[in-house]
């Protein structure tokens, strides 16, 4: 396992995985990396009011969702799951529109995508995943819910309540913690009593797994085992993927005020994409020429998504009123008329 003091780059292996799988993982991680870079640029250009980078967490995200089945499972994200969304097949112009602040929660269809709305209350979606999973068991389905949260959210009461509920109901849910070691400016040792989120699983009677979050093969394998167990009625698993937030919390943040960049640099040297690329070549899953081609395709796709989100139309003002209720009220209709007469003009 890497530690925060890790100085070397280390190495990972993908020999236990199929070449098809690792090529897909690489493609998604590379596309997410390029889209992340485009998104930061869009923020600098003033197109996005702010952005939260997933750089360095691509393995934790892509490795996890690649073990799911988008036809029957359901993902409950927070707000830093862009690489997960991309790898899961979410319509990415719609997803990125949240970062352009076109619509809170996202313009993609959460039910069609089976990928919940972007959520800034970081503990909030975790009990949703448990409820969905209990509902899946009641239906007699074999879908699995994936609840994302971070080391910061691990302190939220909702996360603890959700783990307890999941344990009591034996719900098919995976609690996937991306421990990127920073909850905005607060480090792990000021956040996580006992030092381990995975270890908390034991108290709820659940298996807890600590995995190298920068090793995509390890993340994939750990998640696939948890998915299989949940699908077969074996209940929930807590997975803690240890990684690092190499970028600021958001484009509005200033990490120089609270952390030593030398530590971030050590983790930048353990870049999950570089590790995967080297491992694929080592395992004979791909050669440089193939990977260069994938890189070019990824860059082109990221540009297309960027252009799509940058030029997406702003929602019409009338949409303020459209989805408040399924069956709207007279009062809301009256307020809509006021908007028409006094705002829209």
């Amino acid at each position, binding site marked *: 396992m890497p530690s925060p003091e890790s100085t070397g780059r280390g190495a990972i292996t993908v020999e236990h995985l199929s070449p098809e799988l690792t090529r897909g993982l690489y493609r998604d991680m590379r596309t997410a990396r390029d889209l992340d870079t485009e998104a930061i640029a869009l923020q600098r250009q003033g197109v996005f009011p702010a952005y939260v980078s997933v750089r360095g967490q691509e393995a934790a995200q892509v490795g996890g969702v690649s073990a799911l089945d988008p036809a029957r499972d*359901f993902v*409950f994200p927070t707000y830093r799951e862009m690489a997960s969304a991309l790898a899961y097949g979410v319509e990415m112009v719609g997803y990125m529109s949240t970062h352009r602040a076109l*619509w*809170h*929660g*996202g*313009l993609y*269809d*959460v*039910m*069609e995508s089976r990928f*919940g*709305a972007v959520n800034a*209350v970081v503990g*909030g979606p*975790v*009990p*949703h*995943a*448990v*409820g*969905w*999973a*209990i*509902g*899946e068991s*009641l*239906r007699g389905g074999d879908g699995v*819910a994936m609840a994302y949260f971070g080391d910061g959210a691990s302190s939220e*009461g*909702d996360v603890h*309540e*959700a783990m*307890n*509920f999941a344990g*009591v109901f034996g719900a098919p849910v995976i609690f996937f913690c991306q421990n990127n070691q920073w909850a905005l400016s607060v480090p792990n040792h000021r956040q996580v009593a006992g030092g381990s989120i995975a270890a908390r699983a034991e108290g709820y009677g659940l298996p807890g797994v600590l995995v190298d979050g920068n090793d995509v093969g390890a993340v994939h394998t750990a998640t696939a085992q948890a998915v299989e167990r949940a699908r077969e009625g074996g209940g929930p698993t807590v997975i803690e993927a240890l990684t690092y937030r190499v970028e600021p919390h958001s484009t509005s943040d200033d990490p120089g005020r609270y952390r030593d960049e030398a530590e971030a640099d050590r983790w930048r040297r353990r870049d999950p994409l570089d590790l995967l690329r080297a491992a694929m070549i080592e395992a004979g899953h791909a050669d440089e020429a193939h990977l260069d081609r994938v890189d070019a395709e990824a860059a082109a796709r990221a540009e297309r998504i960027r252009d799509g989100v940058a030029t997406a139309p702003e929602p019409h003002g009338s*949409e303020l009123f*459209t*989805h*408040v*209720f*399924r*069956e709207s*009220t*007279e*009062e*809301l209709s009256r307020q809509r008329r006021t908007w028409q007469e006094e705002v829209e003009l």
Partner: protein
Amino acid sequence: MTELIERAESAPETETIELSMQQAINRALRTLLAEDPRVLLFGEDVGALGGVFRVSDGLQKEFGDQRVFDTPLAESAIMGMAVGLAMNGWRPVPELQFDGFAYPAIDQIVNQVARMNYRTRGAAPMPITLRLPSFGGIQAPEHHGESLEALFAHTPGLKVVAPSDPGEAYSLLLQSVRSDDPVVYMEPKACYWDRRPVRLSEPTDPIGTSRVVRPGRHATLVAWGAMVHRCLQVAELAAEDGVELEVLDLRWLKPIDAAGLAASVARTKRAVVVHEAPLTAGLGAEVSSLITEQCFRDLAAPVQRVTGFDVPYPAGPLEHQYLPTIDRVLFAVQRTLEY
């Protein structure tokens, strides 16, 4: 088979029986569980016990522990779980045991339940009915006698209703659970054991309509929940002095029946709003404002408010000095008549 179903459906509409509100709500839940296999009832102690007020008595036995079940004691997770169940095609009817215990779940109710349909642009509707034993009047411990209606009514995306008698409780619950919008269904604890002859019937009025429970011409008393009965007592006493008070049961606290309020007050020209919640920023202010905006020229006096005081809900011996008394409502009636 078809005949059987038709009989089962029409039976409740034809019989007049004596029921308490707690029994009427139980009947409604039974109807709902029977008619729609997506309806799930869950919360603390709702299963084998039948709820602390026995509202779900016998339902787990009848429908099984997959449809009616206990959860661990965590209100936020109960409401969060309801969100996930709704996203998996269920129609959740969670119970939070007492009004004051809704506060730990406010994040899920306000940030998630109320706005999920909005934030997903209609992709993920939340057909959730939160059953919440509410209001005071039973000398309960602390945090067991709160009136949260203003908080819920102020939250975009929620509908809020408070029945005042068993028949109303039955039909309003059917309406709430069948609605595709989230509804906070506030059960007035003080009315739970109040038995009266009722005709269990399908809802007839649309969501957001009030009802006149006693017609009158000198002033309108507006109330909901147990305060409807307080107002009826007042109207009875006032009638002895020749004062005819109209009592309007608002029922729906969001959406509020603005037209119903205007129709009544345009006739009576005077209004008194009565509620248990504290005065400041209470729903009485909204009602008063709706009346004033619509009936300004008709009003013979400013709208009066008789409410709880701006203090934390008091312990047993002081409860009846806190809740609007008959005398306080009569004083307000006198003020509006003599204005």
